[in-house]
């Protein structure tokens, strides 16, 4: 049984249909990359998986937690799904460690003694064990994004969603963040990511999903998708990004 199962997902913004019937299954430990043109619905799809976007139709299930268009209580789902954003979205009034500890403290009511150890563990995992008490504005973009990853991991999600996590970074900071993501993948974390880093996707992903006009236009293992695109749209897309 897949860990993440999307069935018949539909979503419109007003009269603009953005997701037009998405079916996608992701198994435990898989790494899936969503690619496609700007506006094809990649972010929207990703955001439906933890309920940041409400769906009009379809069913989302993650590790047995099912939601459909009528559900409003998303807490159980969100406990299973972590998310990392393009703009980091760290809490600026909290230190790196406090960012990491907040949700375990507030949502999981973890005891104070465990919290600090958790922050240390998670920040060490992303190579920031020496930045615990720094505020976000005292960190570089790459460091901030790594704190954001640690913050998500601290809730021990079953799957991590990453929306263009390196797009807001200066080029020289991209590698350090990708290295962390790669390590998560190697450690068996289930990942669904939107990315424009094609080389990275090729190396790390098990499955590449090409979205076009709100549908999954083509998908498969990266070697196949890159070397033998089946559709004209994907050929054009891959050609366009060189």
């Amino acid at each position, binding site marked *: 049984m897949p860990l993440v199962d999307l069935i018949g997902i539909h979503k419109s913004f007003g009269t603009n249909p953005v997701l037009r019937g998405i079916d996608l299954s992701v198994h435990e430990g898989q790494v899936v990359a969503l690619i496609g043109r700007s506006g094809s619905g990649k972010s929207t799809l990703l955001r439906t998986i*933890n*309920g*940041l976007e409400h769906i009009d139709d379809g069913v989302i299930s993650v590790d047995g937690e099912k939601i459909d268009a009528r559900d409003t209580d*998303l*807490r159980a789902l*969100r*406990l299973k*799904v*972590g*998310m990392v*954003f393009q*703009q980091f*979205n*760290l*809490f*600026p*009034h909290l230190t790196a460690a406090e960012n990491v500890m*907040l*949700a375990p403290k*507030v*949502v999981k009511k973890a005891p104070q003694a465990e919290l600090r150890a958790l922050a240390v563990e998670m920040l060490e995992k992303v190579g920031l064990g020496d930045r615990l008490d720094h*505020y*976000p*504005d005292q960190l570089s973009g790459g460091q901030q994004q790594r704190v*954001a990853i640690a*913050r*998500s991991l601290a*809730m021990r999600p079953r799957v991590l969603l990453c929306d263009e996590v390196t797009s807001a970074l200066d080029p020289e900071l991209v590698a350090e963040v990708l290295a962390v993501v790669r390590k998560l993948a190697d450690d068996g974390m289930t990942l669904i990511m939107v990315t424009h880093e094609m080389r990275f996707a090729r190396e790390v992903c098990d499955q590449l999903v090409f979205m076009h006009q709100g549908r999954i236009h083509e998908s498969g293992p990266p070697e196949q998708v890159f070397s033998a695109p089946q559709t004209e749209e994907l050929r054009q897309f891959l050609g366009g990004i060189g």
Partner: protein
Amino acid sequence: MVEFAFSDIVWNLLLALRWTALLSVVAFIGGGAVGLLVLLARLSSRRWLRRLTRGYIEVFQGTPLLMQLFLTFFGLSLVGLDVPAWLAAGLALTLFTSAFLAEIWRGCVEAVPRGQWEASSSLALTYLEQMRWVILPQALRLAVAPTIGFSVQVVKGTAVTSIIGFVELTKAGTMITNATFQPFLVYGLVALFYFLLCFPLSLCAKSLERKFHAAR
């Protein structure tokens, strides 16, 4: 007729100044507490609650404080509650303050970037948890300066309560003027005392604004 020496005038005005200060503090604390509730209702996901509180805020922002005071004072006696002037004054000022503070604070809450809501949602925080731990702490920094700035309006607003007979600074000024026939001197002192209350608040608001502007 009693002769008023200058020192008597100052002394009597100072006594009345206490009531102005007390009324201001009561209105500010009461208004802050009620304002917080109004704020939460204003930001609620329930539409009727948002509409109701928007109406509340607009009524208080769109009518003179004096009318609000009259309506409270005479309205309460109309329904058979014979309230003393100080209570009507405190109540009217509290409501007035709550409406303005709720609106100031709403602006501050909305100035917190959407990404903060999204990140905290994705971490499974509930609405109230998001407010408590993520949004309000950030909004608070933004709110300090305009809130203290508004407290100056509250202090000056207390002057209208003299109309219903509450003896605060302005009312005391009027009474002393009637006894001394020295309106320029007495009202000059009254104005000076208001200034001495308000000016430090303005200064404080300005310096906090500068401070939080620079801080993260």
